[in-house]
């Protein structure tokens, strides 16, 4: 399968095995990386991509197998070893220090030091950081403390951090999942520059179009096994998907075809000082309303304001024609609003608790009998019904949420909110970081729910998802609603234009 060999591989993994508590995360994986190539690593969730990356960066040690660096066998026992070999990684979740400033974050672990005093060379530090930020086109003072930066800014700092190593191997673990298209384009051009300068890049993404747009070669993993490596130019997306899931998926985005009912949610002039301004829209029964925009367009803030997590300063909200004031999620819940948050692990689930307890959390009072006594049988029954309906795959309801795969975790979050029998469902990036199979299942579920009359507000940064699922599309930019399209008139280009509208100034 191997294409033309550019040069000697800089990194070669042979027969890597790794098990956690009896589960085989990697069952003999081979991998090869050459200087000056962008090598994509794809596979469904739980395929072992992240584990493989952690083996390379020394976070985990393999149970068996060999790592060859420039042909020499090496043992990487900790992230520092990896750094010394010139391996840098950008992780899915930003791994920054909120109390330190940007420059310190970029150079953490390898501060420039004065020669004799071993004192941190602050001026050099800030100059270099400013230079790196400029290279990335980032307009931020390197002395800004990281706490309070937006997700996209954090991601950029992460990238700057990796660049600061002059890394020979750069690993990007879903770097784009939180970035907007323009930011992605910027990142890609940076990546290409680095590649052309001879850096080897490992690129992980769920978005196949990115793999095809950026990568030179692609390696596919499935269930911890090595499936194959091929040149990107020699495969089609369908072939790749088949390699990943072992089947073909014809329709990733089943279209909903629902008659819309009355207005269930109306928002007028919603404003939160310094965050978003003057947001007005209507949401109908049976409608899926897409909310598009770049990261940092404050879509999540609007959703959280409606749900009462962080209430707005001004503006009115009507539910079923009644004006309401929502100061706490509890009140939103009582009005039949549910919110599936963007950050599944932090806000959606209680990882150390089991599936039942997670699912019943918002409606626990329903199982409380006299004196608050919990009817655990009724509780288990409810959990079982809903998880069966959503096809949650687990060994049992007693399994802890932390032991589930990303896709199943998302299903549990959905199950949790569906038990509240909401009439308005707000989904914030419902399929981010989810494998292709579960993604389709989620989309199908959305369609079904809408056809049963639920009103859905969906925030998504994936344009195909927005275009495929929404009946109507709202576009936000820098805290304002800038445009609105029906499904018929919407195109990728129009949305992008609206989303980036005036931001280039």
């Amino acid at each position, binding site marked *: 399968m191997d294409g033309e060999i550019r040069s000697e591989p800089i990194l070669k993994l042979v027969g890597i095995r790794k098990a956690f508590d009896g589960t085989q995360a990697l069952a003999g994986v081979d991998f090869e990386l050459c200087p000056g190539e962008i090598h994509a690593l794809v596979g469904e969730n739980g395929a072992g991509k992240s584990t493989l990356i952690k083996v390379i960066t020394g976070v985990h040690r393999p149970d068996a197998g060999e790592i060859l660096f420039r042909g020499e066998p090496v043992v990487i026992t900790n992230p520092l070893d990896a750094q010394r070999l010139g391996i840098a990684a950008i992780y899915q979740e930003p791994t920054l220090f909120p109390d330190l400033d940007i420059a310190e974050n970029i150079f953490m672990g390898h501060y420039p030091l004065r020669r004799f005093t071993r004192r941190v060379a602050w001026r050099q530090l800030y100059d270099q950081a400013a230079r790196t930020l400029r290279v990335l086109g980032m307009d931020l003072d390197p002395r800004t403390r990281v706490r309070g930066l937006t997700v996209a800014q954090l991601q950029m700092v992460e990238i700057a951090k990796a660049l600061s190593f002059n890394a020979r191997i750069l690993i990007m673990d879903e770097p784009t999942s939180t970035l907007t298209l323009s930011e992605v384009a910027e990142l890609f051009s940076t990546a290409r520059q680095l590649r052309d300068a001879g850096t080897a890049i490992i690129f992980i993404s769920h978005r196949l179009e990115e793999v095809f747009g950026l990568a030179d070669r692609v390696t596919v993993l499935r269930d911890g096994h090595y499936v194959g490596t091929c040149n990107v130019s020699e495969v089609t997306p369908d072939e790749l998907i088949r390699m990943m899931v072992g089947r073909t998926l014809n329709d990733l985005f089943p279209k909903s075809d629902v008659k819309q009912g009355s207005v269930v949610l109306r928002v007028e002039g919603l404003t939160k000082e310094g965050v978003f301004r003057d947001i007005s829209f209507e949401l109908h029964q049976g409608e899926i309303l897409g909310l598009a925009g770049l990261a940092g367009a404050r879509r999540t803030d609007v959703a959280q304001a409606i*749900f009462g*997590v962080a209430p707005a300063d001004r503006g009115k909200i009507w539910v079923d024609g009644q004006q309401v004031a929502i100061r*706490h*999620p*509890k009140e*939103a*819940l009582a009005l039949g609003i549910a*919110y599936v*948050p963007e950050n599944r692990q*932090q*806000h*959606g*689930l*209680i*990882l*150390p*608790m089991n*599936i039942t*307890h997670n699912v019943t*959390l*918002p409606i*626990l*009072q329903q*199982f*409380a009998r006299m*004196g*608050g*006594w*919990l009817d655990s049988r009724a509780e*288990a029954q409810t*959990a*079982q019904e809903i*998880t*069966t309906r959503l096809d*949650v*795959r*687990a*060994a*049992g*309801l*007693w399994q802890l949420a932390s032991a589930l795969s990303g896709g199943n975790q998302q299903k549990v979050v959905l199950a*949790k909110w569906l038990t509240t029998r909401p009439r308005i469902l707000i989904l914030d990036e419902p399929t981010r970081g989810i494998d292709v199979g579960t993604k389709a299942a989620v989309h199908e579920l959305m369609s079904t729910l809408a056809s049963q009359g639920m009103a859905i507000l969906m925030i998504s940064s994936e344009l195909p998802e927005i275009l495929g699922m929404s009946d109507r599309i709202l576009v936000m930019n820098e805290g304002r609603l800038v445009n609105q399209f029906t499904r018929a008139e919407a195109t990728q280009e129009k949305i992008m234009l609206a989303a980036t509208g005036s931001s280039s100034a």
Partner: protein
Amino acid sequence: MTSLTKAPPKRFIMLSLLLRWEWLLVLLIIVACFVNASLSRYFLDVDNLFDMTFNFMEKSLVALPMTFIIISGNIDLSVASNLAMSAVIMATAFQSGLNIWLAVLLGLCIGTIGGLINGLLVSRLRLPALAVTLGTYALYRGVAFVLLGDLVVKGFPDSFIYIGQGNVLNTPVPVPLLLFSVMAVVFGLVLHRTAFGRLIYAIGNNEEACRYSGVAVNRIKVIIFALSGFMSALAGVIMTARFGSVRPNIAAGLELDVITAVVLGGVDIFGGQGSILGVVLALFLMGITRFGMSLKNVPGQVQSTLIGFLLILAILLPQLLRRFALRSRG
């Protein structure tokens, strides 16, 4: 894989039952009793054993809400000070002519308010509990001193003294022990069998997720801190009755003993894990160990040293052995 109704595998249940921390404590208690009995012929004496419990019932009462608080991911350092403050206020009210039972009620209210203040500061202002209760630790004790200074209040009626010193009817069971037993059952049921208890665990494991799920996190925090205040005041009442007098310096340093017991009882100091049963067992383990050592006239300093060792070893040893086994496996 399809149906999730099936019960966890038998081995899983067996293992999780066997590996319960509580068994370790039970074993330790049995051994402590065995050792004590073989070293001192005074140990295995029903009256002595019941009598011994007088000495740690106040701690035990406070340990129950402390379990809630630590499971919810917080801590309350102010319990002993709150105990002193409410006891002093109760006593001064009694001294100035208030009926003793009304004074008790007042004391309980004061304690609850003290807890409420902690709870409001922690939840509304989202301040770290450690910092807040460090402040009220000094403040509440300070209030006790301001009110009573170098004075003492005594001369409580016998009916009041009875709740701290008496036995139940004609049995050798001390009244505080009975009170604690009832409270322990109530707290255990609330924690393990009610929605409120479940939410305490949920908050301790992931407070943010609870907020997003519409859980009234703030209210629950305020309630458990108020509960802690109430129980501290109750312990203050018992202690006052046991001593037959109040001074502002009573129960100094009690908070550390309480936290030690809760942690020894298997409650995760970072929140989310633990049981009332474990804490009750730990309280008795500590009580029996201390009593045994006192019977052998081991000096006070050495006693607390041994409790310190016990605390660290109980957490360290299982870990060390596991690591040792892993290494020997390869």
